[in-house]
């Protein structure tokens, strides 16, 4: 086949999606970059004043932004570990021959079906009402108290809710990965007398590397961008202890009306996060086993 023909095929396969993607994501993003250099309140009829790097300079004097970035980093690391351990654990359990696997699979996935803000409100009932009830009944007042009033524990509370919601999501991807592992391989290992842990370590985990890459990245990007749960569960409180990055940007844009600064924050954070996650993807990709 000729080179030109290959190019035509390439275009036929990719251009339709690329066109949509460009108009919906790329162009608005570029416009957004432009806005990060202007001073503007976000109201279209009001003037935009070009201020160069001023917005970027201001960000680094904004302590609250810096601490929200730090909360986000803490949250993301915790969430990354919890979501993936639980998601993988679920996936391993429900792909065994257990009788309850089908029911369990549906139940683990259910939290994911509840979207949006109300989820945070439901969890408020749990952290306030249910926890104080449990604390009284079990006497474990040091574990079961209102987490949302404690600066550190309210962050953990968001981790819990996020994990609850996303573990089933990653489970689905891990299941798809586990199912891709040829049965013969496992049977052969079993016949050779490999223990469960050995089988996991030397067959399952290496072959799951593509799923790991995907799940880690999805959790990472989800965690960095967390907004809904943050808003409905803690509204950034107590005393800003759980204000995450997306909420900080959102407030800058919609509450204070500093559109340009908000955009500049988003760009900075995007650059940092993109740098970090791409490194992560490259590292895990190196470890993937080619079939």
């Amino acid at each position, binding site marked *: 086949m000729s080179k030109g023909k290959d190019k035509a095929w390439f275009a036929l396969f990719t251009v*339709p999606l690329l066109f949509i993607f460009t108009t919906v994501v790329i162009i608005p993003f570029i416009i957004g970059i432009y806005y990060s250099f202007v001073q503007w*309140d*976000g*109201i*279209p*009829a*009001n003037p935009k004043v070009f201020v160069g790097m001023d917005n970027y300079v201001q960000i680094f004097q904004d302590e609250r932004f810096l601490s929200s970035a730090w909360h986000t980093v803490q949250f993301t690391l915790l969430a990354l570990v919890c979501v993936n351990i639980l998601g993988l654990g679920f996936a391993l359990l429900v792909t065994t021959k257990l009788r309850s696997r089908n029911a369990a699979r549906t139940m683990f996935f259910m939290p994911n079906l509840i979207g949006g*803000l109300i989820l945070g409100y439901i969890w*408020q009932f749990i952290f*306030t009402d249910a926890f104080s009830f449990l604390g009284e009944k079990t006497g474990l007042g040091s574990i079961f108290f*209102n987490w949302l*009033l404690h600066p550190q524990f309210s962050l953990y509370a968001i981790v819990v809710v996020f994990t609850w919601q996303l573990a089933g999501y990653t489970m689905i991807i891990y299941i798809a990965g586990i199912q891709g592992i040829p049965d013969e391989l496992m049977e052969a290992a079993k016949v050779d007398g490999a223990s469960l842990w050995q089988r996991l370590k030397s067959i399952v985990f290496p072959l799951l590397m593509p799923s790991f890459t995907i799940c880690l990245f999805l959790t990472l990007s989800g965690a960095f961008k967390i907004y809904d749960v943050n808003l409905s569960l803690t*509204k*950034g*409180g*107590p*005393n*800003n202890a759980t204000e995450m990055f997306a909420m900080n940007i959102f*407030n800058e844009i*919609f*509450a*204070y*009306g500093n559109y340009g600064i908000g955009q500049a924050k988003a760009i900075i954070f995007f650059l940092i996060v993109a740098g970090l996650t791409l490194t992560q993807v490259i590292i895990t990709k190196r470890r993937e086993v080619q079939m």
Partner: protein
Amino acid sequence: MKKVKKVLSVLTATALVATLAACGGTSGTADKDSGAASGGDKLKKITLFQSKVEITEPLEALVKTYKEETGNEVEVWGAAGDAYSQQLVAKLGSNQGPTIFSVAPGPESEKLKSYFTDLSGEEYVKNIAPDMELKVEDKTVGVPYGVEGFGLVYNKDLVDPANVKDLDSFTKLLEQMKAEGKNGLSLSQEAYFLIGHILNTPFALQSDPLAFIDQLNKGEVKMADTKEFQEWAKFMDAIKANAKNPMEVKYDSQMGDFATGKTAMVHQGNWSYSMLADFGDMDSKIGMMPFPLAGNDKLAVGVASYWVINNQADADEVKAANAFLNWLFTSDTGKKAIVDDFKFIPALTNIEAGNLDPLSQAVHEATNSGQTIPWALNYFPSGIITNDLAPATQEFFMNKDMTGEQFLQKLDEVWAKASK
């Protein structure tokens, strides 16, 4: 190769469906437009977008009646309460803004003022009660929804308003309630109910609240150096020492505790009546009194939202919008809906108040007799209550060692940062 063809045909079909669907959309809107324009003396269809979710249903019903009575159409859009302003901005920004929309006074209307149509010449605005209209440069641009007021909502069985007149008697009451195992005064964790409303009083008591806010923004005065605020801090100390920590109270539980007699007073507004009503009839048991700071004997009364007309709409739409507002504020059906269905305390002199609940009654009487202090909080810098003052207040209530005086300094500090 047969299969390839099949695939190709599926693909073309999908693409076709997509384009066809898009075309369908085009012709649909075109039809709508021409239909409206050719309707003789029928006015152009307009859209209405507003922030108060609670009145959406009666508003939809009212619009239906409007169509039956006049033949003109109004479409009511909807948004969840806290998503309204952001959606409004996005819609205005993409030229798909509504014809009539609602704005809050202060920073929000300041930001959006370039969209307001001048209503000064309209008949219905002449009936707006003195100083209740929204003005931009001496032109009337907005009509008030209604008046609202807040203060101390109390349980008559537990509190005698004659005994809550100053800091001492206020503190005494809280102490007494605490001794009886009740909560003397409940705030709640939502930013406005935690700090926004209660902080309004010392501002409103300044001789010129707006000038004071301006000076505060410029750093020329400090709350910590101002008499009313110093006393206010002592009130906050008394609340912190004797009442339940408001961080553990949500608006729902605040009203629940009040309705069931566990709480003697709440710092709330007449809007909270609708929640109390869900707990049964308690009209004879509740009342509203002023927050007794520095001898204050007035309720805080103001307007939370105004109707405005979008000047980006074309002339026919503006005409239709004026016709609708005129109908709303002058026809019997419209006036009745405002009072009975929206349950507003009217801010137009040609509308009689309906059967008011006891809290609204208190606000209404205060308004009529002029015994009110303004809502200075409307003029606080944009977003400050939720994003700066509330966190500082959370710290005050969470940190056992923090005194009212330190709290006041903290408020000065966050104010300075936010108003930069």
